[in-house]
C-alpha cells in the first residue's frame, strides 16, 4: 500500500482532532500497529551515511558509527540498509504527540508557561537502563503504534492547540534527525520555536547543521564518568561533552539535565566535577537541572533518589559558581524556582510544571536589573 495525499490528510485530521485526548479515546487509528505494514510506507533515504563495499553502509549520524549490512538496521532500529542504500523509516512517523508545558521538557529559561507540541518516533541510539520511555525508545517503529504526521501537519496541529513551540523529545531526536530538521523548518515558517530534548549523543556535523534551525537544545548529561556511560547506557561520555560545547558555541540556548541515580552517579564529588566542567567549558549561566530518579525499566532494584541527595548536588553546583541550578521531579521544592544571581530574589516561582509567578521584566530582574539569560520573548 502506498500512502496517498488523501490518506495522509485523513490521518492527520484524525490526529488533530484527538491529540490532546488520552490515546485510547482518540478517533484516529494508528497506521503502524493498525492495518499498515511499516514496509509499505515510503521510506526516505537517510542523511549522514556513506556506502561501503559489499552493499554495506556506515552511518555517520551518531557516535555509534554503525556499519550496517544489507537488510539490517543500525543500533537505533529505525534506519535500515536496503540494497546498499540507507533509509530512515520514521520520517513523519510519530508514535507520541502531546502538548506539554515547556517546563516539562524541562526548559526553565525558554518562554516560561508556554506550550510545546511534543513529538517522538520510536527508537534510540543508546540503551539507558533507567529509561523512562523505554516502551518507545527501545522498540522498532513497526512495534509501536504510530501515526503518519509529516512536518506540515505537525506544525498545523501545534498552532491549532495554541503551542508556541515544537519539541522533539520523549525518545531520542538524533535517530529521527531528518524529521527534526524538516519539522524545524516548517515550524520556523509559521513563527513557532523548535526545541530538541536529547541525550546529546550525536556526531558534530549533523549537530552543527541542525542547530541554526533550533531555538533551544536540552541535553541529558547522564554522568561525568566514562564507566557510567559504558555500563549504564552503552555509549561514551566524550562525544556528549563535545556536543555540549558545539551547542554553546553555536549560540543555541542550552540547558542540561542530570538524573541522579542512587549509588551510580549521585556523589557530591561528581556534582562538583560536573559543575566545574560546565562553568569552565560552557559558562556559569547554563542552567543545570538535577532530577530525581524513579525506579523503572532495568533499574527497578534501586530506590528513588533521596531529596537530600538532590539538595546536596544542588548546593555543591551552586557553590562552584553555577548561577542557575534546579531540582526536578520534586514538586514544590524551592529548587524549582529561578532566583536572581545578583540579589537572590525569586524571579520565577514554579510548582511542578506550572509557573505560579513570573516577575521578569524584559528578561531582567525587576529588583536589581540584572539580565537573566534565556529566551523570554
Amino acid at each position, binding site marked *: 500500500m502506498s500512502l496517498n495525499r488523501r490518506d495522509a490528510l485523513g490521518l492527520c485530521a484524525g490526529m488533530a482532532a484527538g491529540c490532546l485526548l488520552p490515546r485510547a479515546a482518540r478517533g484516529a487509528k494508528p497506521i503502524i*500497529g493498525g492495518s499498515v*505494514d511499516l*514496509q509499505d510506507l515510503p521510506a526516505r533515504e537517510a542523511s549522514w551515511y556513506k556506502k561501503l563495499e*559489499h*552493499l*554495506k553502509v556506515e552511518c555517520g549520524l551518531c557516535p555509534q558509527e*554503525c*556499519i550496517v*549490512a*544489507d*537488510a*539490517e*538496521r*543500525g*543500533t*537505533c*532500529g529505525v534506519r535500515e540498509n536496503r540494497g546498499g542504500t540507507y533509509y530512515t523509516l520514521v520520517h513523519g512517523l510519530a508514535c507520541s504527540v502531546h502538548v506539554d508545558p515547556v517546563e516539562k521538557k524541562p526548559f526553565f529559561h525558554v518562554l516560561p508557561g508556554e506550550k510545546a507540541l511534543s513529538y517522538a518516533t520510536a527508537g534510540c541510539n543508546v*540503551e539507558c*537502563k533507567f529509561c523512562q520511555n*523505554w516502551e518507545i525508545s*527501545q*522498540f*522498532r517503529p*513497526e*512495534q509501536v503504534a504510530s501515526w503518519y504526521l509529516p512536518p506540515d501537519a505537525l506544525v498545523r496541529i501545534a498552532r491549532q492547540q495554541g503551542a508556541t513551540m515544537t519539541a522533539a523529545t520523549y525518545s531520542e531526536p538524533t535517530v529521527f534527525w531528518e524529521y527534526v530538521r524538516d519539522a524545524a523548518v516548517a515550524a520556523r515558517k509559521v513563527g513557532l520555536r523548535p526545541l530538541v530534548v536529547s541525550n546529546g549523543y550525536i556526531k558534530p556535523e549533523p549537530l552543527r547543521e541542525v542547530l541554526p534551525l533550533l531555538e533551544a537544545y536540552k541535553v541529558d548529561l547522564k554522568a561525568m564518568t566514562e564507566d557510567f556511560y559504558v555500563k549504564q547506557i*552503552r555509549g561514551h561520555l566524550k562525544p556528549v561533552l563535545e556536543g555540549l560545547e558545539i551547542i554553546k558555541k553555536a549560540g543555541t540556548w542550552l540547558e542540561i539535565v542530570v538524573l541522579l541515580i542512587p549509588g551510580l552517579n549521585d556523589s557530591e564529588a561528581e556534582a562538583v566535577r560536573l559543575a566545574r566542567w560546565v562553568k569552565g567549558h560552557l559558562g556559569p549561566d547554563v542552567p543545570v537541572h538535577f532530577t530525581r530518579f524513579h525506579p523503572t*525499566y*532495568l533499574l527497578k532494584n534501586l530506590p528513588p533518589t533521596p531529596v537530600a541527595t538532590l539538595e546536596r548536588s544542588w548546593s555543591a553546583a551552586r557553590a562552584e559558581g553555577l548561577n542557575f541550578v534546579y531540582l526536578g521531579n520534586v514538586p514544590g521544592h524551592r529548587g524549582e524556582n529561578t532566583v536572581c544571581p545578583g540579589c537572590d530574589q525569586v524571579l520565577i516561582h514554579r510548582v511542578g510544571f506550572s509557573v505560579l509567578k513570573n516577575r521578569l521584566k524584559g528578561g531582567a530582574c525587576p529588583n536589581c536589573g540584572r539580565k537573566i539569560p534565556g529566551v523570554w520573548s
Partner: protein
Amino acid sequence: MTHRLTRRDLAALLGAGAVSRVLGASQARSGRGRVGTAEIPPHARPAAFSRAVGDAVRRSTGMDTAEAAFRGLFGRRDTVGIKVNCLGGPRMSPRPALVEALVEWVAGAGVERSRIIVFERSSRELETAGFTLRKKGGASLCYGIDNDYDRAPTVTGKVASCFARMVSTTCTALISVGVVKDHDFAGVSAGLKNWYGVIHNPNKYHDSNCDPYVADVVRHPWIGGKMRLTVLDGGRAQYQGGPAFANRGVFDLGMVAASHDPVAADAWAWRMVEEERARRALGTLEDEKRAPRFIQTASRYGLGVGDVKALKVVGA
C-alpha cells in the same frame, strides 16, 4: 579466563539440563557434539525433503529409525514452535517444503498438527520466503510474531529484551530451522543466531561480533530450556555477503544437517562456510575479524560443543 557462576548462569545451565532430561536416556547415550547430515539437492522434490530430514535427525540421535528419533524428542503434550530464519528472502531461507517435511515428522511423533507452529519475526517475512500463513484450522499453523512480545524485559547475561510470547508462553518445545550462511558481523548465521528473531531489539546486539549476545539469548530458559532440535537447510548456502542474500556468495552445499546440540549445529555450519571460503582462496572469518565467537561462548555456557574438531558428523 575465569567465569564466575552467577545465579543467571545457574538458571541457564539448569535450562540446558532440562533439554537432556527431555531427550531421554537414548538421546543422552548419543552424546553431545553429534551432527547428522543427509544429502539434499538445491532443487529437490518433496519426497526427498522428508527422507533427508528424517535421515539427518536419525543420524544426529543415533536412533535406529527417524520415527523413534522424533518420538524421543517430542511428546504428545508438546506445543512445538519451529522458528525459521527468513531474513534472506525467498533465495536464502529454509525452504517451505523442507519445513513441511519437518512438521510431518513432528506430527508423526504424536504432536497434534494444531500444536505445531512455524513462525518468524513477521508474517510478512514468512510470506516473502514462500510460506503460506495459517492462523487456525486443523493443519499446522504458520504466522509471524509481529508485535506479540512480553510486556516487560528480562535480562539474560548482557541482553535485556522482551521475548516473543511464542517462546515465553505458547510453546513447550522449540526447533531452530536456519540456513548455512555467512554473516557480516556475527561471522555465521545458522541455528543459534536465528533466536535473535524472538527478541524485540536485536539491533542493539550486533557489536562485538554478536558475542556474547547470541549465546546469552540462547541460554535463557525460554530458549535453552525448550530447544530440542536444530535443523539447517544447506541445499544452497552462502560463504560471503550475508546475512542478506548475495548471489555472488552462494554455493550449492547440497546437505541438510540436524542436531539436538544447537552449538554443534552452528559449529558444523561454521566449518562448511570456512571450507567453501578456503576453496575459493578467501581468508578465514578470523582473518576478517568476524569469527563467530558466540559459538565458543555458548559452549562455555554449557549449551553444547563448539569445538569444530570435536564434532561427530554422521552422514550418508
